[in-house]
């Protein structure tokens, strides 16, 4: 892959620690600007040193405030911090108001806390498609800790698992009864539970319910609740051989931390638990497995994007999606027939290629 001169100097500036270059590269990633792929591809060689922490939870759970306190504590320890805070975008105008930054007052005046607000740009799942690449940029820049704050999540916004090494799920007091803890989804992905606003009524009960849920998960030996190996389960379902060796004694059982983010209470304990999980990942070999699966997912996503744009071209050649949709509306045809018609030339093309290579192979033998 080759980069143009501008991107080349931008990359150099980022590696030299220029904040504006980092900011600009993240914009290029977000905008899918021409050449952004070459840039990210060049960033890869400089990544792998940062701890990536994901913070998720319902809207108003206190994610931004907790992230702010977390960043402050890491800075006190002399570590540099990158924060990516994602807020939803409007399904109507595509616009967004990104308000997480307001809560991040501790970061003010300290350029070594790099806060970047992102709009979800229409994607569901709690992250934007550009998030993983923006993490790479911050990693290459040399940030020690990268904190991703997701969109205020509902029950199923679990994309964060694919991007972060350690996921903390914030559960505010009074988030429903114990049946909620039986449900699949967001509670399954936690490596650490945080009961924030722990000074409110019902906090003890919420802690109790989470504790029971974690124990239940351990007793049954099934994935639900003991989120330690969710990486394998969620991402590919494929070979979990490495995971199976570490269940009983070495497995990770998500701790439950109580915090009051506005006052900073419990933040130190939270940091210790994050560090403990990190140590577990490294010692158990789960981290290598996670990273491998993350890269597999990245490859899949990129290929999907490429194929997707090929198909868009193919669609345009067949008269555009609007015309085809109108034909369905008029009862002339149906979506299934159109799909196979549009795909037919692509399939034929691939088949030709395959027979050619097979022919080449046999002629060489």
């Amino acid at each position, binding site marked *: 892959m080759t980069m143009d001169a501008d991107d080349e100097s931008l990359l150099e500036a980022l590696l030299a620690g220029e904040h504006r270059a980092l*900011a600009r590269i993240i914009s290029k990633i977000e905008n899918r600007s021409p050449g952004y792929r070459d840039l990210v591809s060049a960033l890869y060689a400089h990544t792998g040193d940062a701890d990536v922490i994901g913070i998720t939870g319902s809207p108003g759970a206190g994610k931004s405030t907790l992230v702010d306190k977390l960043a402050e504590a890491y800075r006190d320890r002399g570590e540099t911090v990158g924060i990516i805070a994602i807020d939803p975008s409007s399904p109507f105008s595509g*616009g*967004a108001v990104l308000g997480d930054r307001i809560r991040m007052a501790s970061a003010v005046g300290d350029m070594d806390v790099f806060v970047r607000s992102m709009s979800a740009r229409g994607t569901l799942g709690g992250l934007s498609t550009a998030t993983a690449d923006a993490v790479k940029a911050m990693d290459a820049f040399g940030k020690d800790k990268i904190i991703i704050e997701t969109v205020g999540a509902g029950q199923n916004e679990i994309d964060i698992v694919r991007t972060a090494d350690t996921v903390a799920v914030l559960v505010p007091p009074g988030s429903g009864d114990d049946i909620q803890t039986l449900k699949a989804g967001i509670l399954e992905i936690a490596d650490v539970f945080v009961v924030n606003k722990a000074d409110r009524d019902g906090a003890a009960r919420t802690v109790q319910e989470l504790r029971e849920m974690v124990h239940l998960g351990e007793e049954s030996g099934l994935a639900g609740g003991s989120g330690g190996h969710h990486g394998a389960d969620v991402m590919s379902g494929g070979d979990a051989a490495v995971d199976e060796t570490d269940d009983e004694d070495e497995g990770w059982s998500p701790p439950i931390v109580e915090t009051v983010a506005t006052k900073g209470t419990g933040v130190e304990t939270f940091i210790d638990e994050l560090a403990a999980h990190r140590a577990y990942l490294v010692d158990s070999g789960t981290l290598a497995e996670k990273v491998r699966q993350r890269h597999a997912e990245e490859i899949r996503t990129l290929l999907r994007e490429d194929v997707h744009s090929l198909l868009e071209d193919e669609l345009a050649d067949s008269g555009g999606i609007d015309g085809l949709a109108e034909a369905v509306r008029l009862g002339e045809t149906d979506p299934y027939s159109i799909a196979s018609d549009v795909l037919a030339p692509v399939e034929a093309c691939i088949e030709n290629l395959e027979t050619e290579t097979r022919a080449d192979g046999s002629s060489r033998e």
Partner: protein
Amino acid sequence: MSSEQEAESIRCLVAKVGLDGHDRGAHVIARAFRDAGFEVIYSGLHKAPEEIVQAAVQEDVDVLGISILSGAHDTLLPKIMDGLEEYGAKEDTLVLAGGVIPEEDREGLKEDGVAAIFGPGTSIEETIEFVRENAPQR
């Protein structure tokens, strides 16, 4: 690649600077920009010039809209412009000012690099139109 999907969106920082607690105008602008399809980062109240510069640089905004009703524009706005220059961000950031800024002060602010000043009574449409036409092409 035949068609890498570009998804560019105009990014704006709507900022309140200094000791000035009047944020209704900033909220109205933030909402209107959102509805126009822009990505809006709102700074919150009582920000120091260096905080606004930090946010503008890190967020890599195309547009910085500063709302100021305290009368301290001649002190605060030049500080912001100098800060942007320090990070090499002054040239390609469209800086707008809104609020109560007397006519006689406007020329000086424009010389400092403020692209436009929108006083009371400016229509939202006019502001959005201006941003659309003048947002820097990067």
